[in-house]
């Protein structure tokens, strides 16, 4: 348990970063996990050279999904879309157990803290909801539903 609910995650849950509606966004998407009732909106503003100038979110969810969204925003700010996509893929693979971060190099940084959900299949969707929503936003889809 300590493995998953580490201070960092609890902190981001209690004080989510970039937790606000963005007025002046370029992309936006609503992510919904109907089976938990979790819902969140991700906003993205693109700057020069295809960088993510700003990213924020609002919504409701469990500690895992909220902390994941919060840490996603801090991790991606300033990254290029290209870089963000790579991190998205690696995060997804780590959460579903396809990428063993102990063995393989990765760009996840602090996000590696979510590796523990791999052993909790019922919680993987919580950790990845924000990321799927981000991906949808970048691809221009207005909303996604995960099961």
């Amino acid at each position, binding site marked *: *348990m300590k493995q998953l*609910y580490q201070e960092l995650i609890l902190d981001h*849950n209690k004080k989510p970063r970039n937790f606000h509606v963005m007025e002046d966004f370029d992309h936006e998407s609503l992510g919904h996990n109907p*089976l*938990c*009732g979790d819902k969140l909106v991700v906003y993205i503003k693109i700057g020069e050279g295809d960088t993510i100038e700003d990213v924020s979110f609002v919504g409701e*969810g*469990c500690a*895992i999904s909220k902390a994941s969204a919060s840490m996603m925003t801090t991790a991606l700010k300033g990254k290029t879309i290209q870089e963000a996509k790579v991190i998205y893929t690696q995060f997804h693979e780590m959460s579903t157990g396809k990428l063993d971060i102990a063995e393989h190099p990765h760009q996840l940084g602090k996000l590696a803290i979510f590796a523990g959900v791999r052993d909790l299949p019922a*919680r993987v969707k919580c950790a990845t909801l924000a990321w799927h929503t981000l991906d949808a936003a970048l691809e221009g889809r207005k909303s996604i539903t995960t099961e």
Partner: protein
Amino acid sequence: MLIKEQFSTFDVDKIRDDFPILSRRINDKPLVYVDNAASTQMPKPVIDAFSDYHSRYHANVHRGVHTLSQEATDAFEKVRTLVKSFIGAGDENEIIYTSGATDSINLVAQSYGRAFLNEGDEILVSNMEHHANIVPWDMLAKEKGLKIVVIPITDEGELDMNAYESLISEKTRIVAINHVSNALGTINPIKEITRIAHQHNAVVMVDGAQAVSHMEVNVVDLDCDFYAFSAHKMLGPTGVGVLYGKRELLDKMPPYRGGGDMILSVSFNTGVTFNQVPHKFEAGTPGIAGVIMLGEAIKYINTIGRDSIAAYENELLEYATLQALKIDGLRVIGTAKKKASVLSFVLDGVHPHDIGTVLDFHGVAIRSGHHCAQPVMERFQIPATSRASFAFYNTKEEVDIFINALKEVLEVFR
């Protein structure tokens, strides 16, 4: 100390020995299984009935001339009589084997509903139903142009009987209501509900999935038209269920699935003639061992007695509720006067899924989510609840472990 004395009249230690899974350890802690509303665990006599059947007398049932087939058919059919008495039905032909409560309700929707309801007819569905008693009606309504009318529930999670009386009308053809709500624990006044329904010539479909193992049930006394339940919520296996229906309704209903056993004869020249009830509704090879285990589960429950079970579970629930309410920021969802042993709750600032995960680290298995009853969540404007549901093999000590684990949750998240 009163509680302690009451508990001791019920030999729970002896009972627990019958359930092998209860000695399982989870994350190095003893398993505390309080997810019984989702599915109950299985005692040894029921488990053993399976290997006994497949080691000694398995064969396909009905029409087999050889010994094994006769023995299997015998055992399979005898359970019908057990089920009949278990729910107080008058005639074993009113007992139809299905693959679960969901299948039972779909049978009624597809057979009775499709044959006898017409555009503009109304189906009254309570706001506390499990999806199994909503979606089949919704699908039927879309197909046939029917109207679904929702019977509201009160803040306590009781059926609003005044609203029910004012919503029911000559247009109402079916009332769909659970005997016990799996999300709230509420025990509904079925007898009163059917009385009112019958004044308007509506039939009542009772979803008894959460009721049969927790209290005495008598369908004749309840005067319900249909009653559905699943074996796996009463110590039996998954994949087996029962539909009770009044004989005169079953007789006039068209079949549900087509196949072997539900026909008398099939000819491309002279056509198909259907079998009598209950076989008319039992197409194909049934879950034979499953039904036999259902019979063993009934015998096991009868040995303990549902009255004793209800009394003991009630004490567990009262004790757990009392302890839970001492926790800061905990709100119980479902506070009906009459409740089965379901404790649904939310905890300020902590999401039910996090509660579920943290409790699991402590070996405590509860359910977190909407419990397949999203309209209940919508009604109380919450995304989900945490739910502990007790069986007669749970103990006061387990309640304590559960409560202590809940306190840990608070320490982690506050």
